[in-house]
């Protein structure tokens, strides 16, 4: 495979997605408004320690924003009739999956960095050198991982975006309740903890807890490794499904 064409295809796909899908209403609703509402629903009127829960909220915001673009792209393109044409360009399914993931990760990165900056202004964090080194990795891996999840959710899609947005909501909502955001990981035991360990979001929440001075429950290296492993699994699965379903609904 020609690496030059692959890199070019990934970048062109990401640019296309950024130009078209960042401005779509479902991305705003599911990527920005929803996590904001969840934050207010959880914190307002309760005597909670914001510093303790902030890493979880940051992870939740990143999770929602990074995974909001991916579910939209493929069904929207199939509905508009541009997906088949896209396949006739010098791209293939892995290139499209990577390009869509890059676009989702870019959106998540921008928003999560804004939230991080706002948090840093409101409550200065105490960070170790290791944490400072880990933070960029957590942002990059977290965004790539959840953007890939978004693309995976849309990979079996036909030409009806609302079906996939519903599926995406069904998958994403339970994840925030089993990932140590609202109930700290250290307080979980037995089956609840086992289930929690199956969620990729758990490792991002724990990683942010390490990096922002709250102390994590899982080794930081394992958090990073698991995020990487989930990213690879999501990308490979999305690629596998999309190869089989690329012409569905065309």
């Amino acid at each position, binding site marked *: *495979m*020609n690496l030059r064409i*692959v890199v070019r*295809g990934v970048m062109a796909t990401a640019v*296309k997605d950024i130009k078209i899908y960042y401005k779509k209403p479902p991305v705003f609703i599911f990527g920005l408004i929803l996590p904001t509402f969840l934050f207010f629903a959880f914190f307002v009127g309760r005597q909670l320690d914001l510093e303790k829960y902030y890493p979880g909220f940051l992870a939740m915001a990143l999770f929602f924003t990074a995974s909001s673009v991916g579910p939209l792209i493929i069904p929207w393109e199939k509905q508009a009739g*541009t997906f088949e044409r896209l396949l*006739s360009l010098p*791209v293939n399914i892995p290139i499209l999956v990577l390009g869509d993931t890059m676009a989702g990760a870019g959106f998540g990165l921008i928003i999560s960095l804004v939230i991080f900056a706002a948090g840093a202004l409101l409550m200065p964090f105490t960070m170790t050198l290791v944490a400072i080194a880990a933070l960029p990795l957590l942002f990059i891996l977290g965004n790539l991982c959840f953007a890939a999840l978004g693309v995976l959710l849309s990979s079996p899609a036909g030409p009806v975006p609302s079906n996939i947005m519903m599926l995406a909501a069904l998958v994403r909502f339970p994840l925030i309740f089993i990932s140590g955001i609202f109930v700290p990981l250290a307080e979980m035991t037995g089956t609840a903890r086992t289930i929690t360990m199956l969620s990729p979001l758990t490792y991002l929440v724990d990683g942010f807890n390490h990096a922002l001075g709250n102390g994590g429950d899982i080794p930081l290296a394992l958090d990073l490794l698991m995020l990487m492993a989930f990213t690879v699994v999501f990308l490979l699965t999305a690629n596998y499904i999309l190869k089989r379903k690329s012409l569905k609904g065309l």
Partner: protein
Amino acid sequence: MKSFNIYRGHPKLAVELMPAIEANGLTKLFGEFKAVDDVSFEVPKGQFFGLLGPNGAGKTTTIRMMIGVLRPDQGSVSIMGISMDKEPLLAKERLGVIPEVGNVYPDLTARENLELFGRFYGLTKRTREERASALLEELGLGARADDKIKRFSKGMKQRVSIGCAIIHQPQVLFLDEPTEGLDVQSRRMIVEKVNKMNKAGCTVVLTTHNIEEASRLCHRVCIINHGKIVALDTPERLSSTFEGARSVEVTFDRVVDCGLFSAQCISRTEGEGNKLRFYTSDPDEAIDRIMQVRDEMGLTIISLNTLAPSLEDVFVKLTEMGA
């Protein structure tokens, strides 16, 4: 059997003589249904090639396999000598595709669409900008270049679609019913542009229902029915294949009975009143017979035309035969 490479030692000649498109034994199954069955043909460089067939004949599936959207179950495709199976990205770089519906991004402007497609083909920013501006002018969209596509008519969208397909100056261009349902102006503009590109050396594959258009534009046509090739030749030769479909049309000065003209050289007579059409494999002999009846009956001929079968006649006959 031992095969010989006749181009050995003459690589330049091999490139010159290499066909632009080579389809070998293309077969595609959807479950039990064989949509395309062992389709093979070559399109030489610079040829305007038509792919005709009734709805559901397998044209779109064949095109999808040729442009790399669908993988054949059997067989192979090469574009400019590059295997679509082994090097799909390199093969796709050499082709442009114009689908039936103007499939462009409605949220982008016409210029942004063209430049986006140019990006996929690796054009530099400057080249993208220059070519997009030039193409939009040429396609009559200069004044609307920075308007969003969602506000465009179907014909305008299709013109943008063509711009997107040719911004990288492809060596091979696939058009899937590009003028279907368009206004006369847009249709003419598209046909002129594609014709101009063909004259400049671009190989064109046109899928259409418009037989008259195919007959006028194509150097060679391939008729597909039930997933199989039923005819492949120049429009003229295909028409002449159906000798029995040639006819002589005569208008007399008064009403004549068809039965008077029965002869071995006339296979069938159609018509009513004073205008009759005689189907024959030998127009000369048929005219002799018509003249004989004219003299016997004291008729006067007002007009006489010999008619060759049109490509449409051939198409109907071939697709009816396979039905």
